[in-house]
C-alpha cells in the first residue's frame, strides 16, 4: 500500500498545532509548504511570521523563519530581501497585522515593489487576542469590541487593502481566494504558486489574500464557518485576480 498524500517536506511532522479545530490557518500552512516543495523554494526560503494566531508558525514550517513585531512583517521582509536578494522571502500575516497596525508597511512595501510575497489570511477578526474587530470585519458583525455589530457610523467600513495594493505599479500579482471548499483550496494553492513564481522570476511584489474561517471567534461550527466564508464573506470580498502584470504568462 502506498500513501497517496505525502507529508509536505517543509512541514514539521506529527506536531499538533495550537490552532483551533477547523481553523483555516492550518490549511493555508499546508498549502504554502506544498508550494515551497513543488517549486523547490524551501531551501532558500525565509518566512516572516506575524503577531497573530500564526505567531507560532515557526513550530510548523520547516524552513528558516523570523517572527515580527505586530504589523511589521513587510518591513522585516524588505530588510531581508534587500540584504540577500537571492533568498526567497515571504510574509504570513493576518488581517489585523497587515491591514490595521501594519497599514503603512503594507502600502509602502508594495509601492516600492519589494520583491517579496505576502500571504494574507483574512478571517475578518483578531483571532489571537480573542475576537476583536478587524479592519476587515463585516458590517453588522458582532465582535468583542463591536458588541452591537460593526456600525459604519463609528467603525467605518471593511477595508479592502488588497484592492488598494493591487493598484500599485510595483504590485505584479494580487489575487483573492478562499479556503472554504475543496475547489477554493485548490485555487488557493494555485494562487500561492503564481505569487511565489513572481518573486522567483524576479518580477516584483505579489500578494495573495486568503479568506479563512475562524470558527472560534465567529462562534460557529467549523462547517458553518466554511459556509459563511462562501456565502457571506465573499460577497464583501469578491474572489479573483486583482492584478496580474506578468508578461508573457498565459493568463487563465
Amino acid at each position: 500500500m502506498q500513501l497517496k498524500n505525502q507529508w509536505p517536506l517543509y512541514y514539521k511532522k506529527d506536531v499538533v498545532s495550537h490552532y483551533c479545530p477547523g481553523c483555516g490557518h492550518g490549511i493555508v500552512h499546508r498549502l504554502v509548504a506544498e508550494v515551497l516543495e513543488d517549486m523547490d523554494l524551501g531551501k532558500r526560503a525565509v518566512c516572516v511570521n506575524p503577531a497573530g494566531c500564526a505567531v507560532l508558525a515557526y513550530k510548523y514550517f520547516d524552513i528558516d523563519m523570523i517572527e515580527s513585531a505586530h504589523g511589521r512583517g513587510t518591513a522585516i521582509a524588505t530588510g531581508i530581501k534587500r540584504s540577500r536578494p537571492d533568498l526567497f522571502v515571504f510574509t504570513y500575516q493576518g488581517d489585523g497585522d497587515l491591514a490595521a497596525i501594519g497599514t503603512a508597511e503594507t502600502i509602502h512595501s508594495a509601492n516600492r515593489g519589494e520583491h517579496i510575497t505576502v500571504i494574507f489570511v483574512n478571517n475578518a477578526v483578531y483571532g489571537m487576542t480573542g475576537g476583536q474587530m478587524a479592519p476587515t470585519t463585516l458590517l453588522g458583525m458582532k465582535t468583542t469590541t463591536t458588541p452591537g455589530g460593526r456600525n459604519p457610523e463609528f467603525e467605518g467600513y471593511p477595508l479592502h487593502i488588497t484592492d488598494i495594493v493591487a493598484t500599485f505599479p510595483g504590485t505584479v500579482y494580487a489575487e483573492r481566494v478562499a479556503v472554504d471548499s475543496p475547489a477554493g483550496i485548490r485555487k488557493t494553492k494555485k494562487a500561492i504558486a503564481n505569487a511565489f513564481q513572481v518573486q522567483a522570476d524576479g518580477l516584483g511584489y505579489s500578494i495573495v489574500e486568503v479568506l479563512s474561517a475562524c470558527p472560534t471567534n465567529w462562534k460557529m461550527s467549523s462547517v458553518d464557518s466554511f459556509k459563511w466564508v462562501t456565502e457571506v464573506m465573499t460577497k464583501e470580498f469578491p474572489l479573483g485576480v486583482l492584478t496580474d502584470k506578468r508578461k508573457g504568462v498565459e493568463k487563465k
Partner: protein
Amino acid sequence: MQSHQSGGEMTKTKSQYKVIVREEYCKGCGLCIEFCNKKVLAESQKLNKMGYHYAETVNNDECVGCLICTLVCPDVVIEVYSE
C-alpha cells in the same frame, strides 16, 4: 492510477483505497466528514485524548481516493493509501 477493476458491475466491491484517520491528531472539526462526497467518514462517539470527537472511517468501501478529505483537513490528520 488504476481504473475500476470491475467496471460496469453493480455489486459492491471493496475499495482499492484505505482511509486512515490518525485519531490522536484529529480535532474533530468535521470538515472531512462534510466534504467527502462518498460519506466515508463520520464523527466518532468517543473522545480522543485531546477531548475531541474525532473522525472515523465508517465506509471505507465507498472511497474513491479523491483526496478531498486530506485537502480540507487543517491538521494533516488523514492518510489515504492506495493498493
